[in-house]
């Protein structure tokens, strides 16, 4: 039981990170109907911006963890959001209305470009950050096995919760959220009733990037090491999470993220660490064949 609980804590932490990235996939899909394959790279950029921001704040002597984290989160959101905006403006908007595979191919190109851009700019070597937050709490022990949750794991789960709650509020109770929902239902009609569709789509990319920046900040803190290639695997896993939850559904992405995190932790904990990634992609194949709309997704209605 204690072991199960420990793996659940591990899985929840991972899942929170996947969930935040998955939201970016699902929001964009909901509105524009495309898979933004460059989103994993946006997350990687968020991690790099966080790392650099921590280093710069350190130079100014700001090392008190809570303050540094909040400041870095803001900085990361601004810079990563700018990347999200620019990617949409450069690679997707000119292709809107083109044949439906065009933005997908453009997204893959953008992903390769961003990866190489960061590799050239920051170098291919692993960048490291000394642990800012350390320590943890032992919840209880059972025959020598102590169930432990580290401070940083608590911080990750909390921060993910706050960001997800903020997003839910934004979608349900603000003018921007109403515009987003309107665009999701019918982009043409939304434009006719005076909603600035281009602006709404741009902001959707910015919000997705901001959430990815949050995820990037968390991994920087949690693992303390970042390289230019981390966006690929995390991106594909988050995409799996979005599909599992039902792509296009916001609560689905959160749920999918957490489930994927748990699948990975339980597989690694009970079966073998060797095929941890395989377990996640097996879920993707299973969902796509058995339940293509995912857990909370709406069945796709072909509009006539």
């Amino acid at each position, binding site marked *: 039981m204690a072991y199960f609980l420990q793996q659940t804590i591990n899985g929840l932490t991972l899942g929170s990170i996947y969930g935040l990235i998955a939201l970016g996939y699902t929001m964009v899909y909901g509105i524009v109907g495309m898979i933004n394959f460059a989103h994993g790279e946006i997350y990687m950029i968020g991690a790099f911006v966080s790392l650099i921001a921590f280093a710069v704040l350190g130079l100014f002597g700001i090392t008190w963890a809570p303050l540094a984290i909040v400041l870095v989160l803001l900085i990361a959101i601004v810079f990563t959001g700018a990347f999200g905006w620019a990617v949409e403006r450069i690679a997707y908007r000119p292709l809107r209305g083109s044949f439906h595979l065009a933005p997908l191919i453009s997204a893959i190109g953008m992903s390769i470009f961003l990866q190489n851009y960061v590799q050239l700019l920051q170098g*291919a070597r692993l960048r490291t950050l000394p642990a800012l937050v350390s320590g*943890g709490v032992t919840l209880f022990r059972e025959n020598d*096995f*102590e169930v432990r949750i580290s401070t940083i794991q608590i911080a990750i789960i909390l921060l993910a919760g706050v960001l997800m709650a903020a997003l839910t509020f934004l979608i349900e109770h603000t003018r921007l959220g109403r515009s987003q929902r309107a665009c999701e239902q019918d982009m043409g009609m939304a434009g006719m009733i005076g909603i600035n569709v281009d602006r709404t789509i741009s902001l959707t990319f910015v919000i997705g990037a901001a959430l990815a920046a949050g995820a990037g900040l968390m991994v920087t803190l949690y*693992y303390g*090491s970042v390289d230019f290639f981390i966006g690929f695997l995390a991106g594909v896993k988050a995409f799996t999470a979005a599909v599992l939850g039902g792509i296009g559904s916001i609560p689905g992405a959160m749920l999918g993220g957490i489930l994927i995190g748990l699948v990975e932790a339980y597989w690694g*904990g009970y079966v*073998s660490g*060797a095929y941890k990634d395989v377990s996640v992609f097996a879920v993707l194949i299973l969902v796509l064949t058995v339940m293509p709309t995912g857990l909370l997704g709406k069945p796709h209605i072909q509009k006539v």
Partner: protein
Amino acid sequence: MTSRLLLASAAALALAAGAAQADVTLGVASPFTGQNSSFGEQIKRGAEAAAAAINAAGGINGEKLILDLQDDACDPKQAVAAANKIVSANDAAVIGHFCSSSSIPASDVYAEAGIPQISPASTNPKLTDRGLTSVFRTCGRDDQQSAVAAAAIVSRKLGTKIAIVDDKSAYGKGIADGVRSALAAKGIHEALDDTLTQGDKDFSALISRLKSANVDFVFYGGYFSEAGLLVRQAREQGLKAIFMGGDGIAATEFASIAGPASDGVLMTFYPDPRDNPAAAPVIQAFRDQKFEPEGYTLYSYAAVTAFAEAVKRAGTVEGAKVAAELHKGSYKTVLGTIAFDAKGDPDTDPFIVYVWKAGKYVPLK
């Protein structure tokens, strides 16, 4: 415009003419990009310094030694591509590669072309065990390393419940298997075996597993980036086991990734060639350039020295003759005097056990 074009083509001609002169070109193949690029940097710096010293002393039989750097990114496919480039450039020999999983497939390409290969870092036994006469290394072998690790585990009573984890790479699995069989020969069987994936960052599930099996000693076969994260996350989760790794974690990055958790981690590695008094002037030259010749730097330096000396003795750069010469006699290098055996392995000292302390490693007393 025309004159500029003329000038450019004249310059190109001059360059081509320069290369056509009887220089000795030595290929250097290592990961200069990617995760293991810090090891590639060590190998590059070592080879560059050795070549500079040889050229300053009049070159090899009066000919200048030129390096041809090829990046393999520690990727077997790219390593074979790099090997093909080296072969088609007609390089006299190659210093490399770093990763065993790159050195082994590349060695077939070199052997076919008859180019001697001297690896300063690939420790997998298979590299020299396949009967290729043109393959050499200046570093030790994993089986020597595993034996030293297993002996230390037993004689120092480092643990009773032992876990062995590797990263599934040729190097990592090789050294982990070596420790496994060396322990089994002493009648000790590990309590848990598991693997992780290179490039992964989250090892929490594995660590909980180690915790629940109550292991007090973990041997990890793999490289520093995963090892650093593994140790750091293990301490965060409260796993108190002793960790031990091989030469793959002998990089200062290991300590910067793991942070304070790196204190007390054990590692098998060669006796530090920096302690060799004969190497002092070379080491000073590196330090004057603000480069600490750690890890494989001096192994790479020694590989270039041995090659240059073999060419001098053979009186030719012809691959087969140089390789035959390398098998004969002994070579004075910064590592001490090396003689290569029939397989191409050096007769240097075996490994010793180090312990990490405050970001550096010191011999374990």
